[in-house]
């Protein structure tokens, strides 16, 4: 339980840092997109490391996190537009 809490604390730090940097880069769309993609990659990495430590990292789980990261990226690209 303690390790689980620690892992989620790390995740909170990742997403809050990503959000802070995103707001900090306000007005610079290419930098914001880079921050968004980096945050998505960090989230996927977090998911994989977390499940590997929990010993339940199966291919289906890997694909799920990768697709969540991709969904985040395509949604950001949609909002940013051409």
């Amino acid at each position, binding site marked *: 339980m303690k390790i689980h809490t620690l892992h989620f604390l790390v995740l909170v730090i990742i997403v809050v840092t990503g959000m802070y940097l*995103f707001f900090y880069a306000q007005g610079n769309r290419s930098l914001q997109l880079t921050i968004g993609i980096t945050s998505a990659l960090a989230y996927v990495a977090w998911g994989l490391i977390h499940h590997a430590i929990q010993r339940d990292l199966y291919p289906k789980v890997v694909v799920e996190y990768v697709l*969540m990261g991709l969904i*985040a990226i395509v*949604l950001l690209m*949609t*909002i940013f*537009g051409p």
Partner: protein
Amino acid sequence: MWIQLRHLLTPHHTNNHRARALHVDALLLYVLVFAIFNVSFRLIYRIHPDILGYATDIRVEQLLTATNAKRQAAGLSSLQLNSVLSAAAAHKAQYMFQKNFWAHVAPDGKTPWDFIIGEGYHYTIAGENLAKNFSTSTTVVDAWMASQSHRENLLKSGYRDVGFAVVNGILNGEETTLVVQMFGTSNQLAVLPQVSPVKTEESRTAVVISEAASQSSISGEGRLATSLPLGFTAAYRQPLFDLPTVSRGAVLVFGGFLMALLIVDGWMIAKHRIVRVSGHTIAHMLFLTTLFISASAILQGTIL
């Protein structure tokens, strides 16, 4: 019907205790749909910007009013619209389109001050703010105000004059609306032979440049009548569908659907204490929530 919806939207033994709409193949489908959506929109925008494009309504008088409103709110004097500075701003915008760059200093080293002096406005202090691809005058000024360095420029007490140019063109292959705002103070009234100014203050940041000249020679007053930047005072476009509105709407609807699925999934899994092999629903919710909060604050345009 009900059974199909339950299978699609809620965890149940028929879908291996995970809503069908959250299975990896469904997630892959969402990625593909939005990728196709993106490509289609970009194509339509390039081919028919009159059908799907950026609605734009930016006017110099609105920019001036908004700028002076911010200055007055900060207890500063209003700036006077100066047509010489506006001409300098228009030429700067044209130069950016011509040389295909987006920066305060051109690739050939030409600075904003070259444009200002080139129009005959000799300054004791001058500055420049840039913006591109905003939809309204208010959002342009609000974006400048949200950036510390641009706000400092906009609220500098030493400025007396301001000039604007709003210009449409093609930048990096894309239709772009540029807004150039040039500030200045000139203490010369007589027309004198042109002398290059001596810089006494270096540019402060890469974002907003502010320089002062200790020696001024030519006032812009003498060129007011001949330097009016006609055709650069407004940008107005009204496509059939506003691209940002359509895109944000699609993301909002899909985001709401995905979050609702995850909330139902998390609640039912916790309620029935189901153990399964999958990613963490709470982690997905946390990640997507921060994504949507961040995305809601994306400005349409860019400032420099």
